[in-house]
C-alpha cells in the first residue's frame, strides 16, 4: 500500500457553506447526538476527541452538518446531553448566529421516550409530549413530566427515543439505530 502523496489534503474537513456546526460537545456524546439527528440526506462530518480549552479534560466532540436545520426537540436534547454545547449557524460560508447555552424548550416531543411501562405511549404507541419542569443546571437535574401518564422523570433516568437513558449516553453505552 502506498502512502498518499498529500495526506493533509484528504484529511481536511470540507468547510460548511450553509449549515450548522454543533461545537463543544462533551467527549463521547457526539456520535449519540448525531444518531438523534435526521442526517440521512445531509453531508455530515463528526469529529471526536478534538482538543478543547473550554471543557474539563481538554477534549470535545463536534458535528459539522451541511444543510438542514435543528428542531426545538433536537436542540433541547443537545443541551440536556451536553450543556457545554454551542450551535453555530453558517450562511454563505460565514458565521451567522451562535447559540450558547442552547435553550431547552418548555416542552419536548417524540425525541424522548416515557420510562413508565404502563404509559399509553408505550402500550398503544402514538406521539409523546413532555413538559420540561427543570432545565439542567449545575445544581438541579433535568426533570420532565409525561403529558399522558403524568409521571415525572429526572436526570439520568430520562430516556431518549432510541431507548438509552442519559446515564447510558454519559457512560458511552449506546448503539446506532441505523
Amino acid at each position, binding site marked *: 500500500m502506498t502512502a498518499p502523496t498529500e495526506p493533509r489534503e484528504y484529511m481536511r474537513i470540507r468547510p460548511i457553506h450553509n449549515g450548522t456546526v454543533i461545537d463543544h460537545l462533551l467527549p463521547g456524546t457526539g456520535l449519540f447526538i448525531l444518531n438523534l439527528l435526521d442526517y440521512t440526506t445531509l453531508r455530515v462530518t463528526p469529529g471526536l476527541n478534538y482538543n478543547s480549552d473550554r471543557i474539563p479534560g481538554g477534549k470535545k466532540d463536534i458535528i459539522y452538518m451541511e444543510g438542514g436545520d435543528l428542531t426545538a426537540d433536537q436542540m433541547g436534547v443537545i443541551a440536556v446531553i451536553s450543556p457545554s454545547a454551542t450551535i453555530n449557524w453558517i450562511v454563505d460560508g460565514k458565521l451567522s448566529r451562535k447559540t450558547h447555552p442552547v435553550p431547552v424548550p418548555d416542552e419536548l416531543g417524540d425525541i424522548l421516550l416515557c420510562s*413508565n411501562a*404502563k*404509559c*399509553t*405511549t408505550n*402500550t*398503544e*404507541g*402514538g406521539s409523546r409530549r413532555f413538559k420540561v419542569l427543570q432545565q439542567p443546571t449545575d445544581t438541579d437535574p433535568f426533570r420532565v*413530566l*409525561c*403529558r*399522558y*401518564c*403524568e*409521571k*415525572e422523570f429526572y436526570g439520568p433516568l430520562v430516556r431518549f427515543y432510541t431507548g438509552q437513558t442519559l446515564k447510558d449516553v454519559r457512560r458511552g453505552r449506546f448503539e446506532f439505530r441505523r
Partner: protein
Amino acid sequence: MVTIGFDKCPDEVYKRFEGRHIISIRDFDRQDIECIISNALSMAELLKKDHRQARHLLEGQRMGVIFYEPSTRTVLSFETAMELLGGSVSGIKDPKVSSAVKGETLADTIRVMAGYFYDFFVIRHYDEGSVRRASEHSRYPANNMNEGKTIPAINGGDGSNQHPTQTVCTDMPTVVKHFGTLDGLVYLFNNDLKNGRTVHSFVEGLMLCKPKKLYFCSPTQLRTPENILRECAAHGIAFEQIPRYEDALPEVDVFYDTRPQLEREQLPDDLKGKIRAVYTVRADEIRSKAKKEMIILHPLPRDSKFNSPEYAVDSLPQARYFEQSHMGVAGRAGLLCLLKGVRL
C-alpha cells in the same frame, strides 16, 4: 389564588367548561374546582327536593361509556346521573366483548364511536394517560351537524394515574358540605398511597387550596409518590409521612382511608398482615381519639379481606363514606350539565 366560593358560579368560569375534556386535576385551577363543587351541591339540593325536576336538563343527549376495568360506583353514578337528566347511556362495559380483544386501540375505538352520535364519553382504562390520548380524537366527525366540535371525554380512571371526578364530584363536595370549605383543614390519607389514584387526584386538588396540614400514613412500600410530595413542598403545603394514624388522629378533620390496590401490585403476605394490623381504621381508636366533627371518607369498595374501615365504624357519626358515594351521582350530574352549558 383567586377563589369564587361555592355559591353561584360566575358566567366567565361557567363558560370555560362547555365542551371541555375532564382528564386530570392538573388541568384545573381553583375556580374550576369551586365551580364544579358548587354545581354538585346545587344538583344535590335539586335532586333531594324532587329528582324528577332534573329530567329535562339533558333530554335527548347520549352518553357513551367505555369501561375496560371493573367499576361499580363510577359507571353506575354516571349512568344514573345521565338518566336522571333525561339522557340515555350505552357503550362497552366488558372489553372481552369489544374489538379490544382483536387488538383495537382505545384511540381507534373513540374515533369510531365519535360517529355514533354520542354527546359525552366516560372512559376507564388500565393504561395510564389513555384517556388523554383518547380525548385527542373525541370530536364529532362529518356525519354530525356539530362537525369538528369536541365531544367531552371524561376520565373515569386511567390505571393508577388519575380519577378526577372522584375528587371534584364526590370527595371534595362531601368535605365542603360538612365544613363549608376545603381550606384550613387537616387531612390524613391512609393505607395504599402509592397505587390509589383517588389519593393522587385529591392531593393534587388540595394543592390548589390552603390545607392546614396533610398526613400521609402508609407502609414504606406503599408511600405517596415522590413527585407528589415534592409538589406539596413547592406549593408550601405542610405535610408529614407517619407510620401509624393514631397519634395524628386528634388533629384530623378529614380522614381519607383507602384499600391496598392488589389488582395493581401484588403484596407479600407479611405486608398484608401488617396492613391489617396497623392500617385498619378501628372503631375504638376513632371513638377515643378523633374529633366528633371529623369525617371519614373512603372511595370504596371496602375490601372484605382487609375490612377497613372495620364494620363497627359504619355506625359512628364520623363515617361518611356512603354519603360520599351518594354525592357522586349529584356531582357527576352537575358536571355533565356544566359540560353542556346548562345552568342550574
